[in-house]
């Protein structure tokens, strides 16, 4: 017994030794990583020559398809601004990290951005659950959480004054689409297919505010965490209920996984899909890939590729197929020259256009905040001048002291083979035919009204963008 105990004592000493080594290694790591900022400026992340901003986005994982293109596209704007001397002499350094759409990783990586990279603001981070996980933290540190890539109503919350959403609230999009259905498909039977999360539920909430209850025949949903195969059950139920119009609040993969089984059972309703799940260059390749994965013949592939024709959706940025739109022209130029990798891989699609527009919004916000940049100053500028910022949106941003979500309107469009096509490195996709004038509404029960304000055009110096 005695002998054995001795051995334990020794192994314990080894344990202590190992622990010491472990801690000293961490300490060395800390020495390397935990460098304090050299900034002499009073605002973290801002020096006379540079502004450091950061974001967490899904570069891999379930939400990466399409969304991974946004942050690299944003760099096109920042590279262009930096090549022209920056904003008030400050160049923009953009650090984006991959959170895989996992809120636990978002929480850790956001601390990394704040505590280690010393960012001035979190700009263009993606996702509702992911950004909710850091909303409290960023606000408690008084760090701007700007232009969150989500249409959740939750960003407009007085308790979190440093958070600003950028997209229209999903209920606003739902109302625009619902209003169109009410006016143009009166008397038709309407079915719903939505993602069982805030996103899908809010789209439905908005659509139901407009569509008469009596015309709704079926409501189907899907669970995004188990989204793996075709949504055959849901589409069969909609067919059985006789739904002639199907309003969808779906992500791109779910859009494709709903259309394909419907096609297979000979069900071709009028699809009305929220903009999140209806970007032709994103959904088109998914339709092709899923058809191929399901062993579909070349003829089937061709037929399914045509499914996008006639799909109705909404747009709050100029539709990318409209080659003559000044914003589309500028976006193409910027991507080609200042983000050539993105341009060659993805071209101009809904995601890259979104990234460029969002980054441009941030540059405009910096200009509005003035030469003496502080976090509080930027917040004040957004609340006071946010409404008048020149951005690519079809309507102005709705920011004020009490409203912190982005665009409050857009237009309803249809994918049409008669419209100028969208050509990307992945193929040729049906372009958008504009169906309604630009409209605005509130997330609540207010009416959908025609937008009467000015139509934004890029300033002359942006048009050159050389």
């Amino acid at each position: 017994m005695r002998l054995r105990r001795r051995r334990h004592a020794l192994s314990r000493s080894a344990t202590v030794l190992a622990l010491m080594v472990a801690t000293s290694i961490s300490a060395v790591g800390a020495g390397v990583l935990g460098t304090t900022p050299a900034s002499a400026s009073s605002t973290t992340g801002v020096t006379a020559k540079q502004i450091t901003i950061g974001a967490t986005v899904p570069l891999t994982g379930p939400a990466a398809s399409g969304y991974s293109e946004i942050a690299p596209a944003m760099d096109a704007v920042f590279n262009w601004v930096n090549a022209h001397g920056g904003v008030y002499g400050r160049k923009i350094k953009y650090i984006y990290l991959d959170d895989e759409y996992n809120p636990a990783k978002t929480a850790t990586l956001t601390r990394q951005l704040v505590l280690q990279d010393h960012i001035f603001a979190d700009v263009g981070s993606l996702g509702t659950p992911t950004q909710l996980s850091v909303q409290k933290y960023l606000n408690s540190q008084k760090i701007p959480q700007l232009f969150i890539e989500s249409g959740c109503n939750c960003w407009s919350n007085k308790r979190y004054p440093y958070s600003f959403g950028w997209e229209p609230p999903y209920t606003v999009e739902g109302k625009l689409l619902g209003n169109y259905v009410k006016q143009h498909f009166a008397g038709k039977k309407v079915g719903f297919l939505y993602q069982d999360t805030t996103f899908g539920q809010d789209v439905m909430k908005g659509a139901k505010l407009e569509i008469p209850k009596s015309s709704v025949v079926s409501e189907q949903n899907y669970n995004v965490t188990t989204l793996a195969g075709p949504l055959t059950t849901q589409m069969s139920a909609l067919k059985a209920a006789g739904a002639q119009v199907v309003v969808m609040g779906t992500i791109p993969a779910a859009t494709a996984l709903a259309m394909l089984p419907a096609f297979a059972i000979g069900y071709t309703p009028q699809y009305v899909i929220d903009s999140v799940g209806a970007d032709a260059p994103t959904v088109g390749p998914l339709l092709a890939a899923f058809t191929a994965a399901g062993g579909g013949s070349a003829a089937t592939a061709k037929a399914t590729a045509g499914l996008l024709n006639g799909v109705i959706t909404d747009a709050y940025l100029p539709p990318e197929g409209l080659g003559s739109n000044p914003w589309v022209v500028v976006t193409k130029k910027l991507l080609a020259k200042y983000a050539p990798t993105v341009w060659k891989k993805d071209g101009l699609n809904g995601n890259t256009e979104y990234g460029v527009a969002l980054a441009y919004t941030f540059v405009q916000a910096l200009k509005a905040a003035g030469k003496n940049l502080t976090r509080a100053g930027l917040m004040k500028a957004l609340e006071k001048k946010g409404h008048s910022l020149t951005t690519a949106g079809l309507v102005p941003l709705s920011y004020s002291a009490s409203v912190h979500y982005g665009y409050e309107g857009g237009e309803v469009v249809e994918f049409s083979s008669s419209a100028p096509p969208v050509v990307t490195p992945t193929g040729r996709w049906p372009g958008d035919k504009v169906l309604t004038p630009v409209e605005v509404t509130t997330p609540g029960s207010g009416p959908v009204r025609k937008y009467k304000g000015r139509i934004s055009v890029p300033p002359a110096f942006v048009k050159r963008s050389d």
Partner: protein
Amino acid sequence: MTRAPSPVPVAESAIRPDGDRRDGGHLLRLPEQPLLRHLVLMVFGAGLLYLLTQSLSAYNNFQVGEIGAFAIALAGLSVLTGQNGQISLGHGALMAIGAYTVALLMVHTHLNLVVELAIATLVTTAVGVVVGVPAARLGGAYLAGVTLLLALTVPLLAAQYGSIFGGEQGLTTTPPSAPGTINPERWLAWIQLAAALVVMVLLGNLVRSRFGRAFRAVRDDDVAASLAGIHVTRTKVLAFSVSAGCAGLGGALLVLSTGVVNTGEFPLTLSIELLAGMVIGGAGTLVGAWWGAIALVYVPQWSTSLSSRLSLGTTVAAYLADALFGAALIVVILAAPSGIQGSLRRLAHGIAAATTGRASPPNPPAALARLLRSADVPGGTRSSSDASTRSRDRSPDQVATKE
């Protein structure tokens, strides 16, 4: 490192603890009673970690706290696999259960944080009993299957009952507020590290108690263990529930860092990463759990900075951390089956042997094989002892996973 073949069975060949050790060992000589010894080590470790947290930046403190939380979960898994020979692919889900419990308590009650953490641990332990009872009747791949089911269903249940668990958005919690002027990240790290030290002491005592000996006896040969009077099923359930409780506490502590718990936070890959981290650190050892936790926290970060330094494309960069984990796992299994901790121990013994001219201990798997061989021969070299005392003879820190 030279390793002379040892002519004597394992227990005696490992450093002969005679008077010779006193020359170098007297400074670190610790009390012989396990609880007292572990408490002394805990105080020492606490002092060391206090100094560490004082010297670190806020972000590094945040990460050290996360390491503490992961170390608890890994230590539990390590006891389960390394000491009791059961494999779990569901520890990520058990972490989720602890996390959801503490978050629900934080949202609906205003209990003391320590009470909330204790309740989370107890709830997960209870789940461990429920899962452990059928699991104890299974082994190997079947057990892995049952626990895999757990990993897959828990996030689904949380999504299904969104009104309770908050669905995809989950439950948002308020981090513990630091008293006075203490930096919040440092305060959080203290809470997490203190919990980790307490768990290490408890587990250290457990594996040295008769329960720990029963764990190892059942792992090595359940028939022999049952002949020696050990209730095999009960022992397995105990090991599983203790391990589950650790995972629950680890998950609950992680919520303090992330400030939110939701369905996307505990994916199946987390369970697999935990298993990989445990093997890399050294299965069956408590210190190995810390190595594994360091790997779990730092490898993703290193891979990010490595890929940005080498300007790798996003597709490559995205999977670099997984690739590094996989590569490390292969290297560890091939070159150092007893993990980082086992290799360090052998290195330390090798140095000790070189300086004192003594033979180093044999490779643990080889020792295990020799031991099993000797067990086959009635009246062999170790005929005086039965299976359970032989297991006891080996230091629990030293054994590698059976199978």
